[in-house]
């Protein structure tokens, strides 16, 4: 029990550490290979948006709040892109059971995102994602400035406020 409490205290102090609690500290995304919808291999270090903000959203076809979040964002995505040039990259953690269904699902819902599949959770693990939905916001220098777990109606508006800030608007 004592070991466990010390362990939790250690992690709590770690999370308070100014090294990464500070915004703008250069935390870049790790380089991990994921699959594009056309079957080709894509390295996450190639994620780019020409100096504009990037949203990385971990989701799965079986995760209802994830699908709700991406559907709500797709309703305002055109406006977001026009105002800030932001790009949403949706990373599906669906495994072999659902991998073949991801492309038809994304198209059937008429989503406009850049979608990749992380079938064995390599990118999810490298980004320390526990449960989905988990959303990251990257600034123009591709540094992680914000992350959020779970989704509630209206969260996308709060996210857009942060995107506008990063886009300098």
């Amino acid at each position, binding site marked *: 029990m*004592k*070991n*466990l409490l*010390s*362990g*939790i*205290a*250690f*992690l709590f102090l*770690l*999370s*308070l*550490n*100014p*090294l*990464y609690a*500070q915004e703008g500290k*250069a*935390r870049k995304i*790790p*380089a991990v290979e994921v699959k594009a919808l*056309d*079957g*080709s*291999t894509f390295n996450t270090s190639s994620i780019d948006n020409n100096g504009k903000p990037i949203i990385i959203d971990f989701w799965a*076809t*079986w*995760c*209802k709040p994830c699908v709700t979040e991406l*559907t709500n964002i797709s309703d305002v995505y055109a406006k977001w892109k026009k105002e800030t040039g932001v790009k949403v990259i949706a990373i599906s953690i669906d*495994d*072999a*059971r659902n991998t*073949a*269904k991801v*492309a*038809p*699902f*994304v*198209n*059937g819902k*008429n989503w406009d995102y850049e979608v990749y599949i992380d079938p*064995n*959770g*390599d990118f999810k*693990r*490298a980004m*320390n994602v*526990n*449960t989905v939905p*988990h959303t990251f916001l990257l600034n123009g220098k591709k540094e992680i400035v914000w*992350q*959020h*777990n*779970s989704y*509630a*109606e*209206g969260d996308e*508006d*709060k996210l857009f406020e942060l995107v506008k800030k990063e886009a300098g608007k």
Partner: protein
Amino acid sequence: MSGKAILQFSILFFLISPSFAQTNNNWGEIHGNFQVDAQYYNPDSAIGAPPVPEKMLMNAFANIIYTKGNFTAGVRYESYLNALQGFDPRYKNSGIPYRFASYKVNNIEITVGSFYEQFGNGLIFRSYEERALGYDNAMDGIRLRIEPFHGIYLKGLIGKQRYFFDEGQGIVRGIDGEFQFNEIFTMLKDMKTKISLGGSFVSKYQPDQDPIYRLPENVGASSGRLNLIRGGFTLGGEYAYKINDPSSTNGYIYKPGEALFLTTGYSQKGIGISLSAKRIDNMSFRSDRTATGNSLLINYLPALSMQHTYSLAAFYPYATQPNGEMGLQGEFVYKIKKDSKIGGPYGTDILINYSAINGIDTLNLNDSLTRKGYTSDFFKIGKTVYFKDFVVQVTRKFSTKIKATAFYANQVYNKGIVQSPGYPIIYSNIGVLDITYKAGTSSALRMELEHLSTKQDQGNWASVLLEYTISSNCFVAVLDQYNYGNVDNTKRFHYFNGTVGFIKDATRITLSYGKQRAGIYCVGGICRTVPASNGLTLSITSSF
């Protein structure tokens, strides 16, 4: 490492870390996540909640990853004091079952220690974790990933599999190659059809200590896969073959195993169609032939049925039958355009899914000499129905404030096959109405009404969930699942439960109190059974 040492180390780390912030990352970075789930159990024999002598049970884990340039290292600390009900009780006490170091240089990546990996669809090799299921068959050994030429991806690995806080007896080794033709041959780069070919070979070694049978100590399995994509069309297939592998799962027969997995689909903006089919014949593949449950599985045989999130639709979930099954699944996803007559002002989403899984056609050989077990015609579908599921789901936004989903499913569940012999086939109809009312900019009320009707098993169920999002940082929910249709009127219980949750960035804390019905929780075809419980649950999760 003692608790005192950890505490001292963490204080020291916290004090000297501002100097890290100033030197701006010459020291690398540390990130991680953690999760704690603790439950306090009230005795409740009426609903069949088993007694919990410890009164409180807890699962916890923490991941810490250190990265500096091309070097990565990490550990995971896990603690089961004791494991929550529904998790394998062999997860006991605390320790570090996962630790690795990895380095990438040019196009070679080497990992030593613990790692996860998948070959193709996983038919002969998949090492992965599903923390919510308590599933973890991490490898401990060495893994190499090489891209010798652009478009050629090679993988090699050797190791032993995780077995709770120990390791399995068997040694597993494997190689995999994937060839993306459009990347390899520059003249094909702009070709509209994308082709990829892959193959793998996996072998396991376990000494033969059986007094009766002469068992194969080295068992090899190989698989080949092909994927074609052109515009909106996709076509893919993987075939796997495993030599004789007598084990407790297949009754110690010497028959080889086979698996075939085929998928095809078409999609374009607004419409998506996917079809998949599979055949599995004697494909249980473990690094210890005596292992049971979800331990020491080398491969992954994906379930072909739809993964449900509505509670009553997931009441009778299907679990893959590694000894033999044949199935198919079709899914149609369509968005009726917004501003059209049927679509309404925001469009309407439609999803239709049908899946059917049967056993394989077998002819018992009854030969005690060669013990080949049975023969099975590859193209014949077995007569026994294992599972059927027909789903129609419609989602529509009516205004900026209201949206709703209507869901219907018709299911056939062969409980005698999926769970244990002696149970009947269960025929059920499930209906769900899921309505969200957006009260303000950050507040919303969601109501989920569900109903399951069946003449078998426990009879009809009704479920009501009310979830009120107070702000983006806080929500409350109440749930009542009522087994009003139980043939035994002393078992018509209300499973009433309340939850409150707090979310701030990547930290989430939830507290629930009440009764939880017994159920089966599945992910991907692997399941765990959760017994009924009555008590208080605390869950904390965070990433940093």
